[in-house]
């Protein structure tokens, strides 16, 4: 019996049939306060299969605000979310990989969660907006991630000019400070289309080689991708969807028409991910075609 979540309309994927890694995905679970949580997960797999996503690198953000705030998850919710993510990895070993989510305000707990989840297969660390990125409290987490070769995906606001409700967001300037203190760390600045002024981010991290960006987010401003590629380069740009997969597909299509060479496009689609995540993370793990500049 075929898996109903694997939707195939009989054609090749909407994106070109090469590896396609979504480095910023989320899944839900039964205790996250939404009765439609399974439908959300199914929809991500459905759309991913249609697009040709070969791997969803994902995190669960505690209870998404149900029992503690999404961006300030309690230790109990962190564990609950990570357990849900571990279970999903076990259930979907071919197409799901995991970031272990932590709250750096509970530093010892965060370190313990990283150790626990990496032992079970987590391939990266996810930081939300529980503490500013350049806060010294993040240093032990960044050190551990760098030591283990785990990229760290950090929620970001593009040019945070003030505090927004419900999060202690960071922007490119603050991520750059953290990256400068941890030059071996691959720090992935989240969703340049996810809110704020992406042009500011380009300037803030252009000269910080260990900060990379993912292109996810609901924003599909014309000029955003071109500007990121010009300022940061395809070697530090990774494709992703976050919570709007149609914008991910739109960006894939846009990347194909803005003149990016095929080998550079492959870096964005999967090559950079294969380089920064631990060896063997992806089934189609091959070394990227160009040298590691990050």
């Amino acid at each position, binding site marked *: 019996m075929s898996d109903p979540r694997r939707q195939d309309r009989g054609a090749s994927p909407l994106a070109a049939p090469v590896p396609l890694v979504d480095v910023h995905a989320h899944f839900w679970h039964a205790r996250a306060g939404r009765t439609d949580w399974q439908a959300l997960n199914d929809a991500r797999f459905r759309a991913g299969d249609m697009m040709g996503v070969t791997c969803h690198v994902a995190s669960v953000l505690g209870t998404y605000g149900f029992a503690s705030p999404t961006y300030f998850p309690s230790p109990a919710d962190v564990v609950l979310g990570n357990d849900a993510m571990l279970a999903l990895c076990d259930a979907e070993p071919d197409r799901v990989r995991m970031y272990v989510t932590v709250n750096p305000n509970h530093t010892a707990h965060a370190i313990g969660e990283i150790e626990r989840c990496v032992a079970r297969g987590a391939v990266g660390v996810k930081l939300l907006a529980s503490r500013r990125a350049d806060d010294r409290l993040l240093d032990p987490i960044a050190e551990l991630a760098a030591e283990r070769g785990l990229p760290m995906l950090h929620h970001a606001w593009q040019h945070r000019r003030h505090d927004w409700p419900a999060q202690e967001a960071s922007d490119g300037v603050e991520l750059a400070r953290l990256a400068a203190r941890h030059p071996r760390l691959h720090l992935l600045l989240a969703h340049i289309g996810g809110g704020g002024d*992406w042009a500011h981010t380009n300037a803030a991290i252009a000269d910080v080689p260990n900060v990379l960006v993912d292109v996810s987010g609901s924003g599909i401003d*014309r*000029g955003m991708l071109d500007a990121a590629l010009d300022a940061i380069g395809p070697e530090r740009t990774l494709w992703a969807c976050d919570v709007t997969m*149609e*914008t991910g597909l*739109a960006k894939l*299509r846009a990347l194909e028409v803005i003149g990016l060479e095929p080998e550079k496009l492959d870096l964005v689609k999967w090559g950079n991910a294969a380089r920064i995540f631990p060896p063997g993370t992806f089934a189609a793990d091959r070394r990227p075609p160009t040298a590691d500049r990050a």
Partner: protein
Amino acid sequence: MIDVNTLVGPYPYRYVPHPDPEILVRVLEREALRAAWVGHLPSAFWRDPTPGNAMLYTALAPFAGTLRPVPTVRPDWPRWERALDDAVAAAAPAVRAYPPQWGLGAGDPSMRALAQACGARGLTLFLTVRFEDLRQRSRLDVAGDLTAAAIRDLARTDPRTRIIVAAAGRDLIEEVHWGLTPDEQSRLFWDISWIWGPPEDHLAKLFRTMGSERFVYGTHWPLRLVQGAKANLELLPSDVAGATLANPDEIARDARLAASS
């Protein structure tokens, strides 16, 4: 397919690459879109849209078969009816109005007058909820989004008037749609440029609950990637895949018929 939500001209708050008619024509050809309804972007921010309308007509004239002008009409500006008559003379299918940018709130008498005048002349009224995501707006951009209350008020104003609303999200669409009678709903259309796809599947949910015939194809070019609307349709779940959108030509035709009846 016709893209009803395109603009030409620069945007005041950030650089937008080549927002030019000749580029738009190439984009439409590449995306296999037959035509576009085109507004003049700076006119939304100028006090008097009259010069912008003249620029729009001139800029689109070489592409008359593909790019159809949608001039801007500001109903609290003296002699605004003349701009409406110019639109009819230019065979414009619609006119754009930007009440938040002009400080005209829900129930504003001049906006009601515009809606009635559009109905009388067979012009579709085109409204825009927003130009940019709230989270990235310039400090100078304080107009705010077009409200559901304002749209409901205009949809109730004249039974002849067809209205297209661009750049709305699911919440606002539902708040308006379910606050109208079936007859009022039938004259109101929504472009899909700002509706989320999977995994939330807002577009699919709206198709199921409201019907895909309430929606038109729009991309919000040049501010947003033209690929967004098509991607959203392609990722629809199987029960609504291939759903038929409203035809803007038919909306415009119905508006003319209603005016003449």
